[in-house]
């Protein structure tokens, strides 16, 4: 999964486009600012990841959020390929609606419910980094506070019948909502997510789902660059850095 592509040192990022995705351009644009990244689009009906070394499921409203967020996207033909890629150890990052889709596909634990208070949330959010021994967070420090925007209506993560204690004991929580000082409190919890979970990993640590949008903070001109560390970590991992 981690070999390069011959003479090219660029990491191929396949960004999946579902009907109703709306952050795929942001993701490809953000990735294009990394000299080592080669981002491209994948259509949801594709059955070939076209040499992807990393997969990004972008934000949006796939299939109009009908039934449940991500519930229909999960059955798109490409999701079978994404699941096989993940089972093989490939890196998969799900952002917002992408996180919801990964949860519906049971590639990640739990489910995303309506926000506490039923309000659509769109604002910058502080996140505390919980672990850095993962392919997504190696460029960060444990306890570091980063600021990444939220933009969602269903980000209220709950373990449901998956076992919260096992998820916590397994260290699967990568990011938590916090305040500017890194305190993980209920007041700093924007949507009611259990244990302030903002991003979780699978057991293999090669699949990460997160509600905040790192692709929107990759250039100073848009107000921040805290998202770069996540993508750079993925690039480092694939290039063996």
């Amino acid at each position, binding site marked *: 999964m981690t070999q390069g592509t011959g003479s090219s040192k660029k990491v191929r990022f396949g960004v999946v486009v579902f009907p109703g995705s709306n952050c795929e351009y942001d993701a490809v644009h953000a990735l294009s600012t990394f000299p080592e990244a080669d981002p491209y689009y994948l259509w949801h009906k594709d059955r070939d990841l076209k040499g992807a070394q990393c997969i990004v499921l972008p934000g949006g409203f796939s299939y109009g959020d009908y039934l*449940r967020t991500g519930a229909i996207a999960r059955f798109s033909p490409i999701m079978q390929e994404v699941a096989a890629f993940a089972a093989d150890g490939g890196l998969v990052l799900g952002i917002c609606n992408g996180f919801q889709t990964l949860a519906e596909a049971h590639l990640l634990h739990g489910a995303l*419910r309506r926000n506490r*208070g039923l309000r659509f949330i769109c604002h910058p959010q502080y996140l505390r980094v919980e672990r850095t021994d993962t392919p997504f967070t190696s460029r960060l420090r444990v306890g570091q506070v980063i600021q990444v925007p939220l933009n969602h209506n269903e980000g209220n993560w*709950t373990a*449901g*019948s998956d076992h919260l204690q096992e998820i916590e004991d397994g260290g699967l929580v990568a990011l938590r909502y916090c305040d500017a000082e890194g305190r993980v409190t209920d007041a700093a919890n924007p949507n009611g997510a259990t244990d302030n979970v903002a991003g979780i990993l699978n057991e293999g640590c090669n699949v990460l789902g997160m509600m905040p949008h790192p692709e929107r903070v990759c250039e100073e001109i848009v107000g921040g660059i805290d998202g770069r560390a996540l993508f750079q970590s993925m690039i480092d991992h694939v290039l063996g850095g």
Partner: protein
Amino acid sequence: MYKVSVYVTPKAGVVDPQGAVIERAMPALGHSGAANIRVGRYITLEVPGADPDSAKADVDDMCRKLLANPIIEDYRFEITAGEEA
């Protein structure tokens, strides 16, 4: 052809933000005693099937895989024989 009614409800113990907000609105209507409000989904459909058991098996599969998310939701359904088309 069988007519099916599917009821999808949040599992006990799973927080239901919609139910909580509706519950908080009830006192304004003068219904201060309304409690434990839970919001689910009611789905109707028609399915073909050689017999009731095979139709039930089909509907159960639809519920588990798509109509409900078993991690956070329970489901039940009623099935009745419809008129032949």
